[in-house]
C-alpha cells in the first residue's frame, strides 16, 4: 500500500509545506495547526483590513484538516481564503493557498492548472513545484511530477518538501531503498517543534521499512510517531499494517478501529471491515461493510471519494462486477495514477475483459511501482489469460512483499497449481 493512497482527504505528500512556518511555543499542548489557527485569528482581530491574517487562517485550517482528517476544516479554509483574496486580489501567497486547498479537496486537475499558472508567474517558488508534483502524482502524470520534483531539489538543495516528494516518487518508481534514504534526510532536517511533520515522516519511514522487510524497525518508528502525536491516524494505520504483517489480527482490527474513530472516512471503514473479517468478528465486519457501501456510494461522484475501495468492495466482497466497472471507469477518467489503473484493471478483469485489464495493469507496473496487491492483481489477470509464466512472476513478486493472509493464501495456491 502506498502512503499517498492511505492519505485520503489530504494527500499526505502535502505534508511539510509549512515546515518553515512560525515555530510554536515549546511545551504547549495544542497541536501546531490549532496554535496557528489561534495566532491567525489574533492577527485578523488586530488588522481586519489585511489579507495576511485571513491567508494564515486558511493555511492553518487546511493544515488542521490534515492533522484531524476532518474535511470540515477545508470549508473553513475556503471561506478564509475568499476573505483574503477580497483584500488582496491576485496575491501570490493567497493563490498558493488556493492550490493547496484544491489539492486537499482532491480537485487535482484544477489544482494543477492553477499551479502551472503560478509556476509561470514565479518560477523560483519551490512550493509551487511541490503542488505540481502532488497534482501530477495524483493524476498519474509521473514525468511532469518528476521534472517538478527535480526542480525542487535543484532550486533549494535539501529542502524538506522536495525531499519527501522525491522520496515518494522513488518509491513509485520501484526504489524503496532510495526513498528511505531521502525520507531519513527529511527527518533529520525537520524542526523539533514540528511534531506533526515529524510524526508524518516517521510514518512514511515505517512504511518503507515494512516494505523493505524490517517490521521491527517499522514498529519502533511508529511508536515514536505516536508518542510525538498521540492517536495520529496515519501512524495508527501504519502500526496496523505492521500487525497485519505479523498476523496479529485482533490487534490489527483494534488499531484500525482507533484509526477510524480518529478519521471516520469510508475508505478507513473498508480497511476496518477487512480487518474485522480477518479477526473473525463477522457480524461487526458485516455492519461495517454495509455502512461503507452506503457512505462510499454517496460520495462516489465527488472529487474526494473512496472509489478505489468501492471497486474492490464490489469485486471482492459484493460480487457486483458491473457496479465495480461503472465506478472504476468514472474514476479512471479523472485520473490515471497507478492505483486507479489497478482498480480499473481489477474491475475489467472481474467483467471478463482480461485483455484490457492486462494492458491497463501493465501500464501501472511500467511506472515501476512495487505494490503487493498490484502484483497479485497482475498475477490473477495473467493467470486468467493463461499466461502462466507472467502469472508466476507476478505472484512471486507479490509474495516477496507484505500481503494480507487471505491474499497470500490465494497467491500461494495459484503459484502451486501453476494455473487457474
Amino acid at each position, binding site marked *: 500500500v502506498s502512503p499517498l493512497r492511505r492519505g485520503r482527504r489530504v494527500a499526505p505528500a502535502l505534508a511539510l509545506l509549512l515546515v518553515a512556518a512560525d515555530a510554536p511555543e515549546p511545551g504547549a499542548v495544542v497541536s501546531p495547526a490549532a496554535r496557528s489557527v489561534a495566532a491567525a485569528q489574533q492577527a485578523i482581530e488586530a488588522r481586519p483590513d489585511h489579507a495576511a491574517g485571513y491567508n494564515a487562517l486558511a493555511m492553518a485550517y487546511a493544515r488542521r484538516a490534515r492533522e484531524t482528517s476532518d474535511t470540515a476544516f477545508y470549508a473553513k479554509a475556503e471561506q478564509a481564503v475568499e476573505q483574503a483574496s477580497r483584500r*488582496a486580489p491576485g496575491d501570490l501567497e493567497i493563490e498558493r493557498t488556493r492550490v493547496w486547498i484544491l489539492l486537499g479537496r482532491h480537485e487535482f486537475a484544477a489544482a494543477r492548472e492553477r499551479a502551472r499558472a503560478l509556476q509561470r508567474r514565479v518560477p*523560483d517558488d519551490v512550493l509551487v513545484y511541490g503542488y505540481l508534483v502532488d497534482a501530477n502524482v495524483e493524476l498519474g502524470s509521473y514525468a511532469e511530477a518528476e521534472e517538478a520534483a527535480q526542480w525542487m531539489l535543484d532550486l533549494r538543495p535539501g529542502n524538506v518538501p522536495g525531499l519527501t516528494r522525491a522520496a515518494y516518487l522513488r518509491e513509485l518508481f520501484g526504489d524503496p531503498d532510495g526513498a528511505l534514504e531521502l525520507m531519513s534526510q527529511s527527518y533529520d532536517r525537520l524542526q523539533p517543534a514540528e511534531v506533526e511533520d515529524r510524526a508524518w515522516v516517521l510514518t512514511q519511514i515505517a512504511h518503507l521499512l515494512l516494505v523493505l522487510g524490517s517490521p521491527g524497525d517499522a514498529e519502533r518508528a511508529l511508536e515514536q510517531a505516536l508518542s510525538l502525536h498521540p492517536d495520529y491516524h496515519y501512524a495508527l494505520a501504519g502500526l496496523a499494517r505492521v500487525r497485519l504483517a505479523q498476523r496479529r489480527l485482533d490487534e490489527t482490527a483494534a488499531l484500525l478501529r482507533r484509526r477510524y474513530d480518529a478519521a471516520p472516512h469510508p475508505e478507513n471503514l473498508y480497511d476496518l471491515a477487512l480487518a474485522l473479517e480477518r479477526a473473525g468478528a463477522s457480524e461487526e465486519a458485516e455492519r461495517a461493510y454495509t455502512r461503507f457501501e452506503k457512505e462510499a456510494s454517496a460520495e462516489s461522484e465527488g472529487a474526494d471519494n473512496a472509489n478505489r475501495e468501492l471497486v474492490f468492495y464490489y469485486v471482492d466482497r459484493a460480487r457486483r462486477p458491473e457496479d465495480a466497472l461503472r465506478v472504476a471507469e468514472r474514476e479512471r477518467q479523472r485520473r490515471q495514477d497507478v492505483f486507479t489503473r489497478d482498480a480499473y484493471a481489477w474491475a475489467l478483469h472481474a467483467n471478463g475483459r482480461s485483455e484490457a485489464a492486462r494492458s491497463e495493469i501493465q501500464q501501472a507496473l511500467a511506472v515501476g511501482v512495487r505494490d503487493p496487491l498490484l502484483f497479485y492483481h497482475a498475477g490473477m489477470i495473467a493467470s486468467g489469460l493463461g499466461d502462466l509464466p507472467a502469472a508466476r512472476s507476478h505472484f512471486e513478486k507479490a509474495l516477496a512483499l507484505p500481503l494480507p493472509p487471505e491474499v497470500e493464501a490465494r497467491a500461494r495456491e495459484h503459484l502451486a497449481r501453476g494455473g487457474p
Partner: protein
Amino acid sequence: MRSRRSLAVVLVPGLVLSVGIPFRSGWAANHREAPITALDHKADITDVYAFRSYGAGDSTKVTLILCVDPLLEPGNGPNWFPFDPDILYEIKVDNDNDALADVVFQFRFQTEQRLPGLFQVYAGTGTGVSAPSNSPPPIAPGTLIVPPLINDFDDLGLGQRQRYRVTMVKGGVAAPLANANGAPFFAVPANVGPRTMDYTALFNAGIYPLANDISVFAGTTDDAFWIDLGGAFDTFNTSKLPVLSPAEDAVLVNLASDSVSGYAVNAIAIEVPITLLTRTGNIEPPSSTAATIGVWATTSRPRTTVRRSPLPAASSGAFRQVQRMGNPLINELLVGTGSKDRFSMDQPANDAQFASYFLDPGLARVVNALTGGAVAIPSPPRLDLLPVVTYGPPIAATGTPTGPIADLLRLNTGVAPTPPASASRLGLLGGDPAGFPNGRRVFDDVTDVALRLVVGGVLAAPFPGFTPGIGDRLGDGVNVNDTAYRTDFPYLGDAPSGRSRRHIDPGEPGCTAGFGAACLP
C-alpha cells in the same frame, strides 16, 4: 495604501518588471546574482568574455574567459580564494544556432595542502629564514622556519596548491587537454604580497600553451570589470548617470570611482583556434551565416536526483547547474527576482519562458521614470533587442538562422580583432565592430553599452521620440579599469597585492591613465 498598490501591480506582468527591479536588482554585470547564487559565492559567475584574440600573432584564435567568485579582497588570508573542487566549471559554445552546446570546455580543480602545520596557506621571504641560535627545543637552530620567496609552483611556500584538468567535449566525445610533457596545470594563487611571492612570475608560469594552438590559464587575477557599483545599487544614484557630456563620453578617464578597483576575481581562460569552434571548421568571413557562435558559461554542483542511477558510481556524476551567464546584462538587469534562480539553473535553449523580460525590460521603464521621461524608450515588444538574444544583424550575418531566444554572448568570429590602440570602449556602439555586443572584450564598457542598449535607439534605427545625445550617451562615468590588462593571452591584469591593494573611494581622484597603461592614482 502602499501595500494595496503593490499587490495590485503584481497582477500585471509588465508592471512587475518596473516595480520589481529598482529595489531588488541592479544593473552591474553579474557581481551580485540571483538569490540562491548569492548564497553560493564560489559558484557565482561575475563575467564571461569571448573575443577574437587581439594579441600579436593570435588573431585567428578566440579567447574565452569565465570569472567567478566576486569582489575578492586581496589581503583576505589565511586561506585566500581557491577554486572549489566540487564545482564543475564549463564554457559552452553553440555553433549551429540552436542554443545548445556543440563545444564545451570543462574545468575541475583539486586542492593540495602541502604545509598542513602552517597557520596560513602561503608563506615566503627572500631565500628563507631559519630558526636563530636561541630557538627553544625541540626546534634546532638552523631549521628552516619561513620558506623562500615563492616564484614557482613547486616552491615550498606554496602550501595550498591547486591543479586542474581541462576537458574538451565536442561531438559527444570528451578529450582531455593536457601539457605535451604531461605536467599538470596549476592555478595561479592570490597575490599575497611582495615578500611572500613573485606573483607576476607565477602568473606567467600559469599560462600553458598546448598543442593545436590552444592555451589555458586559471587563477586569481585582477577583476577586469569596472563600474560605479555603489551608485548603481543606490537606485541609480551614480554620480554621472544618466547622461554623459560628449567630452565625458570620449575620455578614457574615470569621472566616478570604480567600485571594483583593488579587488581580485578567480578567472578561467582558454584560447583556441577559430577553426575549432565554427561548425564548418573554417575561419568564416563575417558575412557567412556560419561565422557567429553563441557562448555561455556555467557552474554546477553535484545534486540529488529524483531517480537514483542504477550504477552507484554514476549517481555522483549528476550535476545541478547553479549559475550561468552569457550576456553581461541579462540575469542581473532584466530577469525578475522571482525568476532569477530558475533562470540561473535552466538552459539557454529554454529562455523563451523569459522572453517577456527581454522584450519589455523593466530597467528601461525605470530609467524612463527616474528621468521624468527625459530618457525616452521604445514601446514593447522591444524587437530592437533581438540581436542580443537571437542570431541576427548587426552581429550575425543576414541569413543566419535566428535560433530560439536565448541568453548567449554572440560572437561573429569573422570580424577581425581591432588593434587595442584603435578599439572603442563602447564596442559596436562606438563604431568598433569587434566589441560588445559582438562578443565581449575585457575592456569593453558593458555597463554603458548595456544601459544604452536597453534604453534603446542605438542598435536598431532610432525610434520615434528618441533624442540623440541622451539615450545614446548614458553612462556611469567609469570608463576604464583601474589597472592595466595584459595585451596577450589571458588578457587579464595582475591581481592587486594583499599588502598594497587600493580601492578607489567615491570623491577620490580615480584612475585616469586609460587603456593599456599602468594606472596610477
